[in-house]
C-alpha cells in the first residue's frame, strides 16, 4: 500500500502527514493531531459524535478516509472559536444542552452546519438537521432549547409555554 502525503488545513493550520490513504480522518485528528475533542463512539457514522466540518460541510470523520479529504479545510470543535465562546457554545452552556458532554462537540458542529444553511430554521429543519446526532443523556430537550436560543426563538419544542403552575 502506497502511503499518501496527506495535506489539509485543520482549524486554520496547514498540516502534512504521511499516512495510508484509507486512514480515517477521525484517527488523524485524534491520534496524529491530538485533537481529541472529536469523539469515537459508533465508528460507522450512525451517532454523529465525530462530526466535523470539511469545507464547511458537516461530515462524520469516522466515515471519511484520508484520500477523500485531501487538500480540504477541516474545522473541528477546537477550531470553532478561539478566545470566547461561539454563540452556539454559549447557548449550550446557558440552556443545559449537554450532560455527560460526549456527544456535545459533534452536536455543536452539526448545529453550526445547520445554522449555516438555515439561519432561522423551522422546527422541522432542526429535527432533520440534527437527526444524525445521538444524545443519550438529555432527551434532546436542552439541545432544542439551546438551538432555539441561537436563533432568538424563545418558543421551541420541549419548553413549557407558560410559566405559572397549574
Amino acid at each position: 500500500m502506497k502511503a499518501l502525503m496527506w495535506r489539509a488545513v485543520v482549524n486554520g493550520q496547514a498540516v502534512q502527514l504521511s499516512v495510508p490513504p484509507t486512514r480515517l480522518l477521525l484517527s488523524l485528528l485524534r491520534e496524529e493531531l491530538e485533537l481529541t475533542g472529536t469523539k469515537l463512539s459508533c465508528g460507522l457514522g450512525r451517532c454523529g459524535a465525530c462530526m466535523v466540518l470539511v469545507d464547511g460541510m458537516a461530515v462524520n470523520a469516522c466515515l471519511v478516509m484520508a484520500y477523500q479529504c485531501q487538500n480540504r479545510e477541516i474545522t473541528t470543535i477546537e477550531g470553532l472559536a478561539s478566545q470566547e465562546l461561539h454563540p452556539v457554545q454559549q447557548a449550550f452552556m446557558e440552556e443545559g444542552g449537554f450532560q455527560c458532554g460526549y456527544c456535545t462537540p459533534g452536536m455543536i458542529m452539526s448545529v453550526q452546519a445547520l445554522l449555516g444553511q438555515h439561519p432561522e430554521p423551522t422546527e422541522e429543519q432542526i429535527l432533520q438537521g440534527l437527526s444524525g446526532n445521538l444524545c443519550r443523556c438529555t432527551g434532546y430537550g436542552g439541545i432544542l432549547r439551546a438551538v432555539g436560543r441561537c436563533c432568538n426563538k424563545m418558543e421551541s419544542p420541549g419548553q413549557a409555554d407558560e410559566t405559572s403552575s397549574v
Partner: protein
Amino acid sequence: MLLDKSTAGARWHLRPDGMEKVTGRLRYLTDLKAPGMLYGKVLRSAMPHAQLVSIRTARAEALAGVHAVLTHKDVPGLNRFGIVIPDQPVLCEDRVRYVGDAIAAVAAESPEIAAYALSLIEVDYVPLPVVDSPDAALRAEAPMLHPQGNVLHRTHYARGDVEKAFHACAYVVEATYRTPRQMHGYMETEGGLFSWDADGRLTVQAATQHGYKDRMQLSRILAVPEERIRVISSPIGGSFGGKDELNVQPYGALLALRTGKPVKIHHTRRESVRAGLKRHPMEVTMKTGIDADGKLVAHSVRIIADTGAYATLGAPVLNFATEHAMGPYRMDHVLVEGRSVFTNNGVSGEFRGFGGNQVIFALESQLDRLAAQSGIPPWELRRRNLRQPTDPGPLGNTVMPTDGAAQVWQEIQTSKLWQAAESEGGEKHVPGRPWLRLGFGAAMAMHGSGLGYGIPDPGGGRLGLNAEGKLEAAFSFEEFGQGIMATLEIMLMELFGCDAEDLHLMIGDTDKAPHSGSSTASRSTTIAHLTLSELHPKLTAAMLVAAAEASGHDAACLVTGRGGIWLEDGEGPIISYRELAARTSGSLCYEAAVHFPVTPDPVTGAHFLYTCTAAAVRVEVDTRSGTVRVLEQAHAVAAGPVVNPMGYIGQIEGGASMALGYTLMEDAVMEEACYRTENLDTYMLPTIADSQATFRIHAIEELPPGDPYGPRGIGEVGSVALAPAITAAIYRATGRRIDRLPVRREDLIMRLAGQTGGEETL
C-alpha cells in the same frame, strides 16, 4: 411547580464542567495518552457456550509489535470478578458462557496490530448446548451453567391469602408482560489508561461508578494491596449503570503489569455491545383483583428475569423488582415469587431503574385492564388505592413518610395535558386521515433510592479550607453527566454563601477523596446532603474562630460569604479565604462517614426513602404502519427540594428519553445467544426526531414536616413510569392492548378498509 428555566429564576446555575465540555477541551479517560503507550485488546469468545479445550498464543506472540499475550495462567490473584459474587472469569480457563467472555488479552504498538494479533490466537472449542432463554434454562435436561444450577436467586414475598382473596374480587385480570434487553448506549464506550510506576503502584484511569469497589476487585485479581492501586474514575461520557461493574480494567492492569508500559484500551462499539451489560429482560405474570368499589384486594406476581451468564447485580435487581411489584398502592393480599435465571444470553446487570421499570410496566398495565373491565376511569382507579403518607412500604417495611403518591397523582390530574385530554373524551381522530388515532394515558410509580436493606450503603466525604484558600469538598463520586459536580457546587454555595470561585471540588479519585460509596441508586444527592450537613457547621465554626482571632471581631458576629468571612451585618469580606488558609495552613479539614438511610425492618432489599412520579402522554398511532409517535408528555416528580433546576430537568427528560426508547424501539436482539443488533445502525436509540414531544415537568418540592433527609436523588425516577403511560394511550387510541415491549408495529397495523368506512375484506 412547573419547572423550567424561567421558573427556576435565580436558582438557574450553569454547570461547572460546562466550558470544557462545549469546547471539546475536556479529556475523557478514553482520550488519554502516555509516552510509550501500548494498545490493549481482548479476545472474546466465538461461541456462546462451549468448553475451552486449548488456547494457543504462539503466533500472536511472535507478531512484530506485540508486547504481551495473556491468558488465565497470567492472572496472579483471583481469576474472577463480580460486585456481589465474583463468578465471572477475568480470562476463561476451561469454559465460556457468553459471546463476551474473555479468553485472551493482547498489548501491541498500535490498535491495528493488536486487533490482528487477536486473529492469530487459536482457540479450540467444544460447543455445548446453548441455553437461550430462562425457559430453556429451567428445563430438567438443561446444562448447568453454574455449580449451584441455573437459578441465581429466588425471591418470595407473601402477605394475606391471595388465593382465597381472589374469590372475593369483583374483577380479576391476569396477563404476562415481556420487556426487552435494553442497552445502556452510553456515547463513550468502555476504556481507559493503565500504568504501573516504578514503585509498583498501579494507576487506573477508567470509568466506573464506584472507584473504591473497582480498587477492591482489582486488588483481588492482581494480588496487590488496595493501597497500591489508585483509581481515577471521572469524567465519564455516560454510564446509566452500565459501567459500575468491572469491564476493561483487569485487562488493562494485567497488560500494563506484564509489559511495564502504559496500556490503553478503548472498546469499539461492537466490542461494547458484545461484552457489555444489558437490562434484565423480564417476563412478569400478574394476576390482580379489585372489589366492586375498585379497591385492590389481591395481587399475585411471578417474575422471571434473564440474568445471562454471570451474577453481577442480578440478585439485587430481582429484589428491587420484587419490592416494586406492588407500586404505591394499598393491597392486603400479595404473593410475589421471582427467579433470576442464568442463560448464555450476554450478561444482564445494573441499569437505570434497576428492575423497577419492568414490574411497573406490568403493574400499571394491570390497573388499566382492571379499569376497562370495571368501568372505573383508570386515573380514578389509582386514586382509590393510593398509599397514605405514613403507610408502610411495599414489603411492609417502615419507610420515611411521604405524600408523594397523592401529590403526583393530583399534579397529573390537574395538568393541562390531562384536562385537555379528558374534556375531549375517548378516542380521537384526525379529520381527513382516518388512519391516525390519538389517545392519552397516564401511569405512576414510586421508586426506592439507596441500595436497600442488607447491602452496606456507606458514604461520606471531606470538607476543608485547603492551602490555596479554596473551600474544598472531596467525594469519591463520579461525574457521568448526571450533574453531581453542579449539585455539589450549588449545595456548597448555598451553605457557605460563597462564590463558585471559592470552591474546589475533588471527585473520582481514590487517592484524593474519601469513600462516598457508589454513584448509583439515586443516592449521591442524599449522601452529599447528609455529609455536608455534618461537615459544614464544623468547618464554619473553625473558620470563624480563626477569623475572629485574625480580625479581632467576635466569632458570633461573623458569617461565611463570598470570597471570605464577612460581618453578619453585611460588611466584608473582612478576611479572604486565601488569607485564612495562610493562617491555618490547610489544617482545617474534616471528614464524615454517613450511611444511606435504611429501613429499620430486616426485610432484604427493602428501601426507606422513595421518590414518586407520574407521567401522562398524548400519542398518535398511524395504523397504516402501526407507528407510534409521542406528541406530548407531562411528568410530575415528588423528590423534595430541587437543588439544581438544570440538572433536575435534564435527568427527568433524559430518563424519559431512555424510557421512550425502551417502549418504542430498543431491543438488543439475540438469536441463539448471539447478538443480531451489533451496533447503532441496527440497535435503535431515539433520535431528536423521535423526541419532538412537548415536555412539561411538575416538580413537587414539599416534604412532610420534620423530614431531615432533604433533596432526593432523581437520576432514575424519570425513566420508570413512561412505558405504561404510552401503552395506556395506545389502548385509548386503538383498542389494542400491548403486553410486550418494545411495541411492535405488527400489533398496531390495521387494514385500511376497516377505517375508511368500507367493509373489511378479511
